[in-house]
């Protein structure tokens, strides 16, 4: 029945009407950033699908964007696999963000093929996956997307912003750009909506607040001359 098919498609948010996309129900994990939740179908990171995060430089807040969701998911007994991270995930900082470290597995795999194999296995088993792969072709991405769908799990791929030009079967694609007041998000693709831009106020370096507002007392000056605290050095 064509009508049933239409209902089904709209129900899954694969087909959406411009006026009402917000009403569709999809499984998601809240990002805990209201400005971003409001833009995503299901008000959160999509479950059962890949999310691509495109950024070129480290240290712009790309991980802090995920931290609230990861911290809440780490309360559940499921693994969070970090597959070949580019740097060492600093355990004290992860813990300070509320992540239970015994849920985190770090996978060291040098070859892209092994990384993708691991990601696919983990997604199929319902684990959460953070992956930093090299160049991927559409077939590989589709395999991961299908694995995430089969395991009803959540996969985050960190890719170079050059990939923005390529086609991708990922459910959500976000280009991350640094901004003076936080993180500028360019939602290239999302469920039930057209591309849109967003600004996430990420000025807090951690949950403790803005660095400039932190007290600087109890700092002992060293035996060597203190650095000139000036904007340029």
């Amino acid at each position: 029945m064509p009508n049933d098919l239409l209902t089904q498609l709209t129900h899954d948010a694969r087909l959406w009407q411009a006026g009402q996309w917000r009403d569709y129900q999809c499984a998601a994990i809240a990002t805990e950033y209201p400005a971003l939740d409001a833009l995503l179908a299901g008000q959160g990171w999509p479950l059962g699908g890949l999310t691509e995060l495109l950024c070129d430089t480290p240290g712009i807040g790309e991980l802090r964007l995920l931290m609230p969701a990861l911290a809440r998911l780490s309360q559940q007994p499921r693994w969070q696999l970090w597959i070949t991270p580019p740097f060492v995930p600093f355990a004290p900082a992860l813990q300070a963000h509320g992540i239970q470290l015994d849920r985190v597995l770090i996978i060291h795999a040098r070859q892209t093929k092994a990384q993708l194999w691991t990601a696919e296995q983990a997604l199929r088993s319902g684990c959460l996956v953070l992956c930093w792969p090299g160049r991927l072709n559409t077939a590989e991405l589709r395999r991961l997307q299908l694995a995430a769908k089969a395991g009803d799990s959540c996969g985050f791929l960190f890719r170079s912003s050059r990939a923005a030009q390529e086609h991708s079967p990922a459910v959500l694609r976000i280009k991350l750009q640094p901004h003076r007041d936080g993180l500028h998000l360019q939602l290239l693709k999302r469920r039930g909506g057209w591309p849109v831009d967003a600004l996430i106020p990420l000025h807090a370096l951690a949950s403790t607040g803005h660095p400039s507002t932190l007290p600087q007392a109890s700092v002992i000056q060293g035996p060597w001359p203190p650095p000139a605290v000036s904007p340029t050095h």
Partner: protein
Amino acid sequence: MLWLYLHFTHLPIDLLERGTETRRPLALHLPGQSRVQWLNQLAADAGVLPGQRLNTAHCLCPELAIQSYAPERSLCALRELAQWAGRYSGFISLAGDNGLWLEVGTMRRLFGGLPGLYDPLSQDLQNQGLRFHAALGYTPLAARWLARHAHLDAPSEDAQRMLTQLRQLPLDASDIDPQLQEKMQRMGLHTLGQLLDLPKAELAPRFGQPLIQMLNQLMGTLPHPLPAYQPPAIFERRLDFISEISTLAQILFALRKLLVELMGWLRTQLCGTDQLQLTLYHRDGPPTHCTCGTAQAEYRDSEFLALARLQLEQPALRESLAERPICGIRLRVEQRQSLAESQTELFRHPGQETQKHAQLIARLQAKLGPQAVQQLAIRDDYRPEHAWNYQAPRSLQAGTCPPPAGHHSLRPLWLLATPLPLHHTTRQLLQGPERLCSGWWDNHPVMRDYYVARLGSQQAWIFRDEHNRWFIHGWFA
């Protein structure tokens, strides 16, 4: 108690012949003796008889193959059979060098009646190429004597019928001392029934107390304790190939056979194992060892095979296989773990998820190596490079840890393994300094002032050491 006795009528011949296709006359002698001890049908047709001198036998049948046969081989084969029989019975005992007792009374409900137990068992034995007699009895001796006399086609539990059959047994089917048997024959006693009808008080002075005890054990009035067969604590099997093999498929084919045996071994003990040791033997050079580990105790051959395949598919191993074909494999399991507590739940339970996750870790470790899968742990140290370390993954536990001890200072999510010299000209210090002076006791002293800084668009964790050099140590990702 109901006993099934398996009497292997031609065990030495069957053991030697089961692997070969072409039949030829065969005679076996004990090492150091020159008389025929066992022979096959073809040799018997040619006129060879047990007890004949080997020279005579050779003259009668020139194409006769003569082999020396140590009786320990039968015993060894019998132990293997006892291990195999563990899937049918919980209590097994070896009898001499050609028989097995199986206690089947307690097992028949599991198999849905005696035929359900006996039919697959006899089918298995026939597939193994072993000829045997089987009989049931309510005492071990009754089963043994009945089996030695005649084969049982369909098992029957009828005690009355069993007794009738027992009474009709000739005396030479029994374990009675041959000298006593001869004495009885001369007295006109030919069947067991005639012997049993005589008053015991009269028998004892004539034939001695041991016979009375044996008859009492036969009728079940005296207990007959049997030593239980204990499976070995270590599983070790070796398969040697006639020709060298070098492809993965061939190895896996052979390995599957061993793993099925292993599954039988583990199942008889209600155990699982989490480590397999696989050794590949080459014609020359040292053997290759590999170890397959599972994250939790496992017994199924399919799981082990999948893990072994991942292990053997590793490129380094495959290349070495191409250069050095193997001529044998060995499977060894040293540690067993009880499987009693891990039973399947009727309803979906969080434990199932844990098991799935444990299997995932086992797969990852088999494919990538145990060092490639690690967890993070916190160490009590102020120095960032020593404040964490990797550790082997522990099993996933439901429930939550206590909340983390509050870290008062800001720490970056990315830490650089080695600090990067900083040549940035435009750095904006946002917070700091935080002074870390520590580690004078273990030869890694640090004297650093840490700052949170903005480098262009990035936020970094930088420090200045005592020589006034600047380094990046982390990114606030």
